[in-house]
């Protein structure tokens, strides 16, 4: 057996120490990967959102790496953790991500609850974060939209304020409107904003607002209250599976007024759960995948997604016409990563202040969900009313299609 002498051992130790000292230098050097991270609902009942943005982010990373990375450095999703849309878990995950000093940029979780839970710690940390899906305005503007945004927090999601303005335009033709909203921050804020927008558009508008708990199996009490108030149309602010319960309940109670939904409500679980009853439902969602022809960035993303995953649950069965919800559930993750990558490239640095400065200088960036994304130091929410469309659900053969009406 070979024996290591005292002198050899000392040399080995020195060599080890030297290599240990040089390792961080290599990691920080030109060849090291640029790392991003996020926590999202990858599993659990709301994983259509979290798993969706993960897929979108992966496509963005693969695309940039195929094109040679950022100034020759590869890009990596180094921390991708699952929070199941539970705020506590999102906080634990984000703590772990922030403890990794190699992460240079972040994507916010799916949903307002987890995002509101982590946003203060991310603001204190200073690294840039972009919100793909959470809708509550206070995520970006904690002191009101007329006050400065959080310096390092940006958003491309459908903001409740913008969605409320679009919904109010669609509902302004009715004098009496019923609103059913889930009892979460998303539902409560959304209902308040739609009420304010509608009353601003129509001074004689009469609104009946009722709440429900997610996953309730019967909504009779809420629906008959709306019916008794003489509602001419009903708006649901919630998620797809609950909207299916509401639509089925309406049918059992023989309530035949027009049904409107938010972007979160009219998703695949709604179409599957309500079956043929979805016909006639109108909803607000991204216009990107509903316009023909799609704008180039949307078409490119649709092609990339279909090539990687096929016509699956997120894309829908028709190769030529992806679900409009593909924008919010998947493409928003793609846009977030692309915006971060673009900012790092323009900044020529991975220092948080440099990336934030570059994000603030983003002008007319071609996104898949929003055709033209612009941020300024005051304007950290990219979506505008014209980026949304009002759709109507129709049946063509045995398929449900969404036709852009406005």
């Amino acid at each position: 057996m070979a024996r290591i002498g005292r002198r050899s051992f000392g040399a080995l130790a020195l060599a080890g120490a030297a290599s240990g000292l040089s390792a961080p230098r290599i990691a920080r050097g030109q060849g090291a990967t640029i790392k991003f991270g996020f926590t999202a609902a990858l599993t659990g009942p709301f994983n259509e959102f979290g798993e969706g943005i993960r897929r979108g982010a992966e496509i963005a990373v693969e695309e940039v790496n195929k094109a040679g990375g950022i100034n020759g450095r590869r890009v990596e999703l180094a921390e991708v953790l699952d929070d199941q849309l539970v705020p506590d878990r999102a906080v634990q995950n984000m703590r772990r991500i922030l403890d990794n000093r190699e992460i240079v940029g972040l994507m916010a979780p799916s949903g307002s609850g987890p995002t509101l839970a982590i946003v203060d710690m991310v603001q204190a940390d200073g690294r840039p974060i972009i919100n793909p899906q959470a809708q509550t305005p206070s995520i970006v503007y904690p002191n009101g939209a007329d006050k400065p945004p959080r310096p390092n927090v940006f958003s491309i999601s459908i903001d409740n304020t913008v969605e409320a303005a679009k919904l109010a335009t669609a509902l302004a033709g009715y004098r009496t409107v019923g609103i059913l909203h889930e009892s979460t921050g998303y539902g409560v804020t959304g209902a308040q904003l739609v009420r304010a927008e509608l009353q601003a558009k129509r001074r004689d508008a009469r609104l009946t607002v009722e709440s429900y708990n997610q996953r309730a199996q019967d909504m009779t009490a809420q629906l008959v209250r709306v019916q008794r108030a003489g509602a001419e149309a009903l708006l649901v602010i919630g998620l797809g599976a609950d909207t299916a319960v509401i639509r089925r309940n309406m049918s059992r109670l023989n309530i035949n007024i027009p049904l409107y939904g938010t972007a979160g409500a009219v998703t695949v679980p709604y179409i599957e759960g309500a079956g043929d009853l979805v016909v006639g439902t109108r909803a607000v969602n991204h216009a990107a995948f509903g316009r023909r022809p799609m704008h180039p960035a949307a078409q490119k993303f649709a092609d990339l997604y279909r090539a990687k995953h096929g016509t699956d649950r997120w894309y829908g069965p028709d190769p030529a016409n992806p679900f409009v919800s593909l924008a919010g559930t998947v493409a928003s993750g793609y846009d977030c990563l692309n915006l971060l990558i673009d900012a790092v490239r323009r900044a020529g640095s991975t220092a948080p202040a440099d990336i934030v400065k570059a994000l603030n200088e983003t002008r007319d960036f071609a996104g898949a969900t929003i055709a033209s994304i612009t941020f300024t130091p005051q304007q950290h929410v990219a979506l505008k009313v014209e980026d949304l469309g009002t759709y109507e659900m129709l049946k063509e053969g045995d398929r449900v299609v969404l036709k852009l009406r406005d």
Partner: protein
Amino acid sequence: MDDFFFSLVLAGISVGSVYALIAIGLNLTFWTTRTLNFGQGSLMMLCAMLVVFLASQGLAMALAVIGGLLVVAALGVFVERFTIRPALVASGGSMGWVVSTLGFGIVLQGVAAKYFGSQAMAFPDVLFTTQDYVTVLGQHLSLQYLVVLALSVSLILLLELFVRKTVWGQAVFAISLDPELALVQGMPVRLIILGSFVASSLLAGVAGILSAQIGGTVDPAFGFDLVLFGFVAAVLGGMGCSVGALVGGLAVGLISKLVGGYISTAAEHAIAFALLMAMLALRPQGLLGRPEVSKA
């Protein structure tokens, strides 16, 4: 009759009859072992998910329902053998079975999420669609609600007849009073206990199918809330009393809907737990139960 009131009453008794079915399932195991299977909600979920899965594989709906029920019946045997019996032996009559049955339910949720996914699955219309209805005295009556009510009440009455009018039913009653004496008398106590868990699981399966048909979707977390309401119904009516379970279930369903309709939808579910607390404070044996007497 006022349409508003009528709609609330119909939905209340329909939903309440599902609570009653769950309460009866809880009662069955309470009779034989003085335990409750808190994994009932997951059995409801699994049965409904299996029906969706089997139907999607091309099986006729009736066969899919039978398949789902057979699996949950087998799981009833598993629950008794591996979560209740060891807990009762090991803990000498303490409450270890609460944790073990809850744990069983959580494991079942995980298994369902692994194999069927965690997204809500569309549940097919088993007997009628949401658009099927009859008109009685000018009122629109959903056949889905009526079938839930009719099936639940029929099953509860059949079970009550079984317990009161058959030798096996009398044996269940005897075991509920004194299992040791029943054993000495030569009754197959172990078999009857096992049977009570199988029957309880089957009732959970039926309740799962009926309530999934109302909502139209089912996911791995389905059933947990319903078991809580079933528990409230069982306590309200009197733990161990079949007629009490029916009365308790209907009362919880009706009062919840009427409070939701006339007072506030935010109070719809909270009122059930307020009733539970009031009943435990004022009449712990429930509306139709008898106070338990322990021999010295």
